[in-house]
Every structure is written in structure tokens, then in C-alpha cells.
């Protein structure tokens, strides 16, 4: 079997909320292999976002280790983590994903521009991806001139245009109605099936869960259920 994309071992995270410690994660072991489409679910406050952010290098665990694509996060500087996010990870956030002063095309080019991809190449790739996602008509529109669903699809386009090893999406459907949610999920499913893109989502939304190939349920900062732990 190929190398796992994500390996978390004994990850804990405790926040201080008005001097009261909140145990957001209490020793999570979690492995994701290439090509998986994982849904993290669980009640509010169970630690889904915290785990996703730690895997995404946006937050640091108090103890335990995180290895993504064979890079151990332990000891990486803030700037090295930023570099890693830029080159290996794709993010789709809940809302406010896009840069308002840039057009859809420029937003999709943004990451590749930071990566230093030559102008002609990144523009070609950005146009390709946008067209594939059915946004060919609106590449010159700014976020303010698009619907929420269209904006989220542009965000997905931006996340995947640079070919990340892992796509992380925290509540990607929270601001969408069920029809656009379905469109978005179809899109993620296609990316997962056709391109073998590894995806982890954190969600409450049963529709999102139903599209995933592996269910992981959290409760009180620990994994309560994991499809991967079931006998095959």
C-alpha cells in the first residue's frame, strides 16, 4: 500500500476559555491514505475544525505528532508551515474564501502566482479548471458579482488548480442551499473518483457525509467511530 497522506498520532489540543481548560482533542490517532474522501462529523464542539486545522498546519497540537505527505510538522517554523500549505494543501473555507478585488480567474491564479508558476501556464490552468467546473462564462467576474455557490466553486477551483496532495474543506456547504450543495458535492466526488484527489471534510451536513467514502465521527475530542477501523 502507498504511503499515507496524513498520519496523526496521539494529537491533543486544549484551549483556555476564560481560564477554563477546554479539551478540544484528547489523543487522536488518525491516518488517511491517498484517494480517500473522508468526512469528519460529530456534534458541535467535538473537535472537527480543530483536527482539520491541525492537519492543515493552521494550528499546532499540544502533544502528539502530525505527518502530512511524509513531512513531520513538529519543529517546523511558522514560515515553513506557510510554505507547506502553499505547495501541498488546498483549502476551502466556510465563507469569505475569495479575494474581493480579484476576478474569478485571478483568484484561481492567486496560489499559483505565490508559487511562482509562469503567467502563461497558470492562466491556462486556471481557465481549464474553471471551465471544467462550469464557470467558463464568469472568469472575469469578481466575487461580489457571483452567487454563493459559484463563489464556493471558484474556491474549489483555486484549491485544486495547483494540484495539492490533500484538499481540506471545513463546512464547505454551510452557506449553500441544498441544490448548490449537491452541485459542489458532485464536483468533489468527481475530483475524488476521476483524479484520485484526497479530501477531508468537516461537516454536520448529512448530504456531505453521504458523498464521502469513509465516515469518521468525533465526540468530545476523541474518535468515536471510524469506518477504517471496521473489519473489511
Amino acid at each position, binding site marked *: 500500500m502507498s504511503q499515507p497522506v496524513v498520519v496523526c498520532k496521539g494529537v491533543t489540543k486544549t484551549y483556555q476559555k476564560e481560564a477554563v481548560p477546554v479539551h478540544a482533542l484528547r489523543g487522536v490517532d488518525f491516518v488517511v491514505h491517498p484517494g480517500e474522501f473522508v468526512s469528519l462529523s460529530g456534534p458541535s464542539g467535538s473537535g472537527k475544525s480543530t483536527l482539520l486545522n491541525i492537519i492543515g498546519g493552521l494550528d499546532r497540537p499540544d502533544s502528539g505528532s502530525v505527518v502530512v505527505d511524509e513531512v513531520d510538522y513538529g519543529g517546523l517554523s511558522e514560515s515553513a508551515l506557510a*510554505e507547506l*500549505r502553499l505547495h501541498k494543501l488546498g483549502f476551502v473555507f466556510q465563507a469569505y*474564501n475569495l479575494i474581493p478585488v480579484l476576478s474569478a480567474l485571478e483568484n484561481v491564479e492567486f496560489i499559483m502566482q505565490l508559487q511562482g508558476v509562469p503567467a502563461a501556464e497558470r492562466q491556462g490552468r486556471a481557465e481549464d479548471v474553471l471551465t471544467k467546473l462550469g464557470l467558463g462564462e464568469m472568469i472575469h467576474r469578481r466575487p461580489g458579482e457571483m452567487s454563493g455557490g459559484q463563489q464556493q466553486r471558484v474556491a474549489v477551483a483555486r484549491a485544486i488548480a495547483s494540484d495539492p496532495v490533500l484538499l481540506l474543506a471545513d463546512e464547505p456547504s454551510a452557506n449553500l442551499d441544498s441544490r448548490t450543495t449537491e452541485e459542489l458535492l458532485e464536483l468533489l466526488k468527481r475530483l475524488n473518483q476521476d483524479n484520485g484527489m484526497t479530501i477531508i471534510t468537516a461537516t454536520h451536513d448529512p448530504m456531505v457525509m453521504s458523498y464521502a467514502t469513509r465516515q469518521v465521527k468525533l465526540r468530545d475530542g476523541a474518535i468515536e467511530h471510524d469506518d477504517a477501523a471496521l473489519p473489511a
Partner: protein
Amino acid sequence: MKLLLQLSIRNLLRHKRRNGMLLLAIAVAVAGVNASNTLLRGYQLDLLDTAVSNLTGHVKVHAPGYRDDPTIMNSFVIEDSFTPDVPSDVLLGWAPRVRIPGVIMSERETRGVQLVGIEPGAEGISFLRDAVIDGEFLTAADDNRVVLGKELLRQLESDIGRRLVIITQGADGLNRERGYRIAGSYDVQGTGLEKLFVFVGLEHLQALLETDAVTEVSVRLTTENYREPAKLSMAASLSDLEVMDWQELEPQAAEMFLFADGVIYVWFLLMMGALTFGLVNSLAAAVMERVKELGMMRALGMQKRTVVVQVVVESCVMMALGVLAGTLLGALIYAAISDGIDLTAWSDGIELFGVASLLVPVMLPSDLLTVAFSSMLLGIAASLYPAWRVVQVQPLDALRS
């Protein structure tokens, strides 16, 4: 970098009104500083010209002791072959003179004056160049007539063509008394000089005093910038004489000159300081309302320092536009007043500083560049604090807010 420029310009355009006002403020401040600089430079140049033309020159040679006791006793002889030890391309001209105290008498009045023996041809370097002459000026070094100031002529209640008596001390310490015909009178800005100097041919005066010495050699350069080196090289070749520049001979004028420099800096700091304050506030507001956006960029992998540079670039674009507009506006103001501002209404106060009553502005490219350059530095400085503040917010916190 292209991305950052694009982002900053679009973000500036996002708030056209707010940034338009700020741009206007920068432009007006820069234009104001530039315009006032042209006036102060004009004043300085006038001050310099007056000080240098006032028989001082850029550099002057005396016998040691002449300054304490300005008589023919403290004089020196110059060789026929003498020329000042200054490269010829920076030497505008030089003049030997005998300058001693004397008493002048008309039929009605008596006045104490400075009697100055000159070579008329060499005096293109002094204020006489621009003076308005009534009657005739001296024609040669052995001219035995006098030329005096219009004001003095009025006070003596005499006239051109009439005769006067001058008493002064000869090289032997004995008084000389002699009658002179008035060849003409000179009229210059203000009356101070007109009351002070009475001119006569140098060779004639030397003959009267029974000497072949002079009391001073005045040297005028083509540029003030060469004053120091000229003084040093002349002092080296005339080691037994006293070589001084106008700043030492006219310390008051020198102080006013430096004072004008100081005013330029203080004025710049005041105007631009107030402006920087506004710029910092405006940038802080612009950046803080984008915390989320900038946090998202960092979450996607943009480095902290790139975010800082982004804010700095935005500030610099703003400043550059403001400086450009302000420099153009300043040039327009300069063009409008380039004929000079008539100060005759205030000339009583102004004359104290020995300045002409017409203030002609002078625009120096170096001043424009200094203002532009310092403004850009301020633009960078002003953006550092807002930039620093915005990167203190962690990307996750920014996204959550």
C-alpha cells in the same frame, strides 16, 4: 511583486473617496513644501548674493590686523603677476582695493565714510555691477574723481559735477586732505551701502596715501560650492595674510542662511508629520477592515513578510501618486510666482536682513528630489505599524472573526 502592485491599486480604488481625500492632502502638503522651498531658496540666494556682492566676495584676503584696525597701516603689496590660487573655471573675477575710513565734507555737511580705491574694470564682481549710475562712473584706476551713493549725495546736499573735500590718513600716519569732483552717484536697493561707500580710482588713492599696497583682495567664484576649497588653497599660498570667506566676514548673513536651511527642514517635518499621522490612520483602517482577507491569504500559504510588503506597497503607491501630483502642483505654483513676489509693503522689516524687496523663488531639482525621496521614506515608515499590527493576528483568528 506584480501581484502585490495589482492588489494595492485595486484596494486603493475600493475606497475612492477616502483615498482621494488622502491623495489630495498629500499633494497639497508636498506642493506647499515645494513652493515654500522655492521661496526660501530664493531668499537664501538673495542673501548670499547680497552678502557676496557687498564688497565681500566669496573669499577675501586682508593683512593680519586689518580687521581690528582697518587703516592703510595694515596693508599688503600684491605682485603684478598675482592671481588668486583658484582654478580658472570657478573664478568669476577678483578685485584689489584700498578701503580705509575717511571724512567727506560738502559746503553744508560732514560725514564719516569708507573710502574705497578700486580698479573700475574689476568691480563687475560687486554690487556696483547692478547699481544704477547717475552721471558717470569712474573710468580708470587713476581716475581722480569720486562716485558716491545717491543717499549720501542727498545728505551732503551736493550734486554731480560739484566738488567735495575728503580727509584721510596716509601711509606715513599724517592726514591727507584733498578736493574731488563728483563724477556720479550710484543707486542700489536700500540706503545702507549708499551712505557707506565712496569710490575713487585705486592708483590715484595709492598715490595720495604714498603707498603701492592694497588693504584687500576680494575674490568671487562662479559657485558657492567651491568656497571652502578656494579659501583653503588661497590660505595655503598666501600664508602671511588673512584669508576669510563671506561666512566669517558676514556672520549674521551666514546665520540667516543656515536659518533658512533649518526652516526648510522644520517646515517639511511639520507638514509631512501631520500628513504621516493621517496616512497611518487611514492605512490602519484600510488594513483592519481586511483582516479576514489577509488572514485567508496567509492561511492559503502567503508568508507574513509578503503581507507586510503588501501593506507597504499600498502605502508607497499612495505616496508616489501624491508626490507626483504635489510636485506638479508645486511647479504650477512656482510658475505662477516665478516673476518674484513684491515685498515692498513689508520692506522695512525685510531690509533688516539685507534682502531685496523682490523675492524671486528658485526651484532646485535637488530640493524636489529630497522632498520626494523623504516623502517615500515617510510612506514606508507610516505603513510599518499597520502592517505589523495586521500580521499579529493569527490566520485562524482572522478567519473566525
